[in-house]
């Protein structure tokens, strides 16, 4: 999956392209948003089937993304 633009910017204005961010953003979009046919979202997580009348999974993707970046920076130092 690739996007034209994935930018994380901090105070220094750096730009990073990260597969992890792409996946997190994809999760945020496909799991949280989009057309819903009432009662027909059927997903399974860790072998437990979950049926959501209105699927409302909230992923704080930015915070997770920042954690990924922090770990990467720590490893690089």
């Amino acid at each position, binding site marked *: 999956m690739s996007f034209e633009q994935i930018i994380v910017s901090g*105070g220094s204005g750096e730009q990073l392209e990260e597969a992890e961010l792409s996946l997190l*953003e994809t999760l945020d*979009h*496909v799991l949280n*948003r*989009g*057309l819903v046919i009432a009662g*027909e979202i059927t997903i399974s997580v860790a072998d437990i089937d979950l049926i959501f009348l209105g699927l409302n999974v909230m992923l704080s993707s930015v*915070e997770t993304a920042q954690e990924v970046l922090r770990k990467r920076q720590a490893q690089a130092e």
Partner: protein
Amino acid sequence: MKLYVYCLVEGGVGLPRDVQGVGGATVRLLSGETLSLLVSDFALDAVPVSRENVLQHAAVVQSVLASTTPLPFRFGTLVTEQQLRSYVDAKYEALKAKLEQVSGCVEMSVKIILDREWIEEPATNIGHEKPGTAFLSEKRRELLGGEARLEEAKRVAEWLEGQMREVVREIQISKNPTDKLILATAHLVERDRLKYYRTLINEARQQRPELHFLVSGPWAPYSFANIDLEFKTQFGVS
């Protein structure tokens, strides 16, 4: 055998080439007169939330986005063909109107982090308060911090809206900021104005260096695909 549903498109749109559906299934077009749906057969009773499946769902929708603007379904939509046809028949007018509304546009996602301590009132008496008082004081500080965070989120949202107004057709804003993520917003942008959109976003980033931006896109209009809320509002059903 159920159908896994990816997105809805205007009738006459062709099937994208070289794209695999969830579980490696063949993607096909369920054609109607004016609306069509991209679907694939799905043998299981539930769709596992795996990296591969999520990316395949997104890839199918994204491949359509290359040529037209689809209305994407949420991951995990499994229905019979009869259920799907009933849904489209029942919601036909709303679906058609929504497709027209997003026509020629893509979604850009902007998330903003402000890494700041949100508890505004200093805890001066920690260690000297009685347990019950300490608990109430902590709760009060949390409430004040939450209010400050919401106020700041509102200010940033208004500022960003002002920066992007001339290039954004529609905006969706998250109402539940977490500690650091103060704003999650989706912009509906006309395709031929994307370059200008990026220019304005870059200018905004330079204006507020204390804010951390995560900008992604272009996406299919996932955040603008909800027709049910509009119908409920329109007909006064709570």
